[in-house]
């Protein structure tokens, strides 16, 4: 039995593990892939912190709240923005070679920021931070369960005693016992096409918490990335904007600074992409392309043959981020005792209705650290619980059944349909009719999903089984998104209802918490995001 078990080895998970370990807890990480293969690795830009002379955390907080369109949780925003400079300094001291200007830290001005505020590492902040945190996690002696897929929280009588996880190499399901669990499993990007999804972005942790009875929050806020390489998943780094990138459409250039807000900007781009295409150009030269944009331009070249320094890139918006997630308080505590959540799977209320570039990574680091510390404290004040074996038996029975059922193409077709459905009906522009249709289809799909399975009985590395489990998670998350989007009868941030096109502060200055029930998702409004609030 571990003191703290972190599920997920991305930036949030590793930061949580290091924090818990620094409190003296014995820590393990279980992750689907080797930690450094997690999707945080693909983050190109940086993280926000008021580090440049003249900037203040209050200015950072003000920009965050303005962008969040009235729905940010003020205490969380203040706490994270105030801590941000120290969080960046800690990363630097752990070994992240942030860019400097001379001997001072260098910052970039990203869209939505009043000043240069994003600390960066060329165009590979994710890769370098992830590698650095992993180095330190190995140094700290953390135990790794690499290539283990968590299937459920081991919850019995309201308390959590660990997680049930599948060892991919053997096909065995085990309980990984722990006094405290931190979920840091990332987002559900695979729910949408087009998206910036990696294979493992299936929202597993969100679904696990949801199924175990924890409320989710702010699930209606789904944010697209404005400029993703057409035909691929590669986001063109936001650093490009800081260096004068321009988006050209048939109708002229689109900029994000016209004051209409991030939602309007994204919808205009989507329209332009549908109408004839969007091209990104910039005044950057070959040296910048080789230096600052090396990683992006190299990948663009490999995938399209285009030279970023000379040629315009065809881009389009693609789903990028769910802003909500498992409802947590400022310490990362979820609605289930002993279970914490951090990173992209957690709904902290920091982003509100629209997330600011450079704030996502910041919130992964901040929420990871907070959840890790809280989990360690919880573990140290908790006696070793008796291991529950009912959840294990339940999951073993579930997978055993799945192994005997057909899978493959019907699952693939279902995910394709689901991704199209979510993009079309629960994407940038929504209305009651579309959302109801989506919700109905999701129910039907869940039913069909229940009759499908792994497509083979293969024990080791059964990717058919993974595909089946992934789709199960995605359907649960889809259900919560559709219900929440239908519930919010106004437009705010990145949530746009064509049938309720205006922001309605009198009625909707609240968050929606969504909980699973036999009869489907149940919504509850609340002024706070915290599960108890």
């Amino acid at each position, binding site marked *: 039995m571990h003191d703290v078990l972190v599920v997920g080895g991305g930036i949030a998970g590793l930061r949580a593990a290091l924090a818990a370990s620094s409190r003296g807890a014995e820590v393990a990480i279980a992750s689907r892939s080797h930690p450094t293969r997690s999707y945080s690795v693909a983050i190109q830009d940086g993280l926000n912190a008021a580090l440049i002379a003249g900037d203040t955390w209050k200015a950072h907080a003000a920009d965050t709240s303005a962008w969040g369109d009235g729905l940010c949780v003020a205490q969380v925003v203040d706490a994270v923005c105030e801590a941000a400079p120290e969080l960046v300094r800690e990363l630097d001291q752990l070994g992240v070679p942030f860019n400097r200007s001379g001997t*001072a*830290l260098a910052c970039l001005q990203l869209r939505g920021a009043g000043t240069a505020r994003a600390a960066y590492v060329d165009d590979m902040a994710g890769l370098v931070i992830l590698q650095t945190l992993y180095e330190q996690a190995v140094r700290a002696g953390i135990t790794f369960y690499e290539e283990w897929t968590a299937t459920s929280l081991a919850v019995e009588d309201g308390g959590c005693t660990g997680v049930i996880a599948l060892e991919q190499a053997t096909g065995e399901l085990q309980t990984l016992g722990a006094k405290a669990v931190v979920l840091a499993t990332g987002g559900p990007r695979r729910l949408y096409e087009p998206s910036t999804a990696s294979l493992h972005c299936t929202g597993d942790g969100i679904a696990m918490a949801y199924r175990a009875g924890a409320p989710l929050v702010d699930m209606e806020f789904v944010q697209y990335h404005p400029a993703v390489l057409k035909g691929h*998943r590669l986001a063109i780094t936001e650093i490009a904007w800081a260096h004068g990138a321009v988006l050209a459409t048939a109708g002229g250039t689109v900029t994000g600074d016209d004051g209409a807000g991030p939602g309007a900007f994204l919808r205009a781009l989507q329209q332009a992409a549908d109408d004839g295409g969007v091209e990104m150009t910039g005044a950057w030269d070959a040296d910048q392309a080789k230096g600052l944009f*090396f990683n992006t331009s190299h990948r663009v070249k490999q995938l399209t043959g285009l030279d970023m320094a000379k040629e315009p890139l065809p881009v389009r918006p693609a789903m990028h981020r769910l802003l909500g997630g498992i409802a947590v308080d400022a310490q990362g505590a979820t609605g289930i005792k002993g279970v914490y959540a951090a990173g992209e799977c957690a709904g902290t209320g920091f982003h509100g209705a629209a997330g600011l570039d450079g704030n996502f990574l910041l919130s992964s680091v901040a929420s990871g650290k907070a959840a890790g510390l809280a989990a360690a404290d919880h573990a140290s004040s908790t006696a070793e619980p008796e291991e529950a074996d009912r959840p294990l038996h339940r999951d073993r029975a579930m997978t055993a059944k799945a192994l005997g059922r057909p899978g493959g193409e019907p699952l693939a077709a279902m995910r394709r349909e689901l991704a199209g459905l979510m993009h079309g009906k629960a994407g940038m522009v929504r209305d009651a009719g579309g959302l109801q249709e989506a919700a109905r289809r999701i129910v039907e799909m869940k039913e069909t999903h229940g009759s499908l399975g792994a497509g083979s009985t293969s024990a080791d590395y059964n990717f058919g089984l993974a595909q089946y489990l992934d789709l199960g998670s995605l359907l649960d998350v889809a259900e919560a998104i559709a219900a929440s989007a239908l519930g919010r009868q106004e437009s705010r941030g990145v949530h746009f209802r064509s049938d309720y096109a205006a922001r309605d502060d009198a009625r909707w200055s609240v968050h929606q918490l969504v909980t699973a029930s036999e009869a489907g998702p149940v919504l509850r409004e609340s002024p706070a995001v915290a599960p108890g609030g």
Partner: protein
Amino acid sequence: MELTFNVRRGDGRTKDATYQAYHVDVEPETSVFEALVKVREEQDGTLAFRGNCAVGFCGDCTMLVNGRQEVTCLTTVSKALKDDAIKIDPIPYAPTVKDVMYDAKRFIWDKVNSFSPGVVFNGAGWGGAQAVTDDDLRPVRRAMRCTMCGICDQGCTVIDVNLDFKGPAALTKVYRYVFDPRDGRAKERVVEAGETNGVWDCVHCWEASDHCPFDIDPTHRIMDLRDRSVRLGVKSGTGNRQAARHYNAFERSVENHGWLDERNVAIQSYGGLIKGGLKMMPTGLAALRRGKANLLPHPKRPGASAIKALFARYREVTRTER
């Protein structure tokens, strides 16, 4: 476009691999990785290969594509196609686990983690008296582009004959620490990196640099590590003193004669006249018989004193950091 994948199937123990053909319809600019994911999701969930991010950062999808090691998510099918088909094999210098999946622990992580991990911060943050500059950190960032894709290790001539050689990827990780001015343990690290199967076993064949898709120039990073090591007075690990003996003998020869006396260097590298002489006996005798070697060490050549002066100067110039 329609194309055929011929994918190696079977567990790691299967000697005679079988190839299974999969036909799939994808766009020409689809990556090999995404096309294989499509195959796996639509046709065969038992097909085992790794990969996650699909945009060339996670480093997990390395395979042999028509015999060439590639980051498969950055290789489009149209580029990879050969006679309407693409042959997929696991990378050769790692034990195969299943199908195209290799033993990543044995291949890369055990090696990377065999070196003391993690920067040990020495107080040189930003601002303040010890602050480092961007110029100091630029080489570190370049090395940290490394995705641990393992392509360099696939080109490595030493791994080709000895799977235990740490390889350019793991040694590039050591470079990242040793050249990070915020880490206070360069000397311990170069000793660690200098043990058997480490930097001194590198034959500087430059294959790694030729292979790395991200222009990290890993062979150069190893040579930089050796240079830094020598600067710090370290010429081997603790268990392979012959590496230091080799270096010193080589240096002595060039310093004193201007030139290398291979025979003498070999004798001294093997551990002095008695042991080394015995070891060299068979070769030495054969060489003499064939008129390939003369018994006497090379005489000094003209210019020797000038070279000696350069060495003296070098010791002076680099003295401060010894």
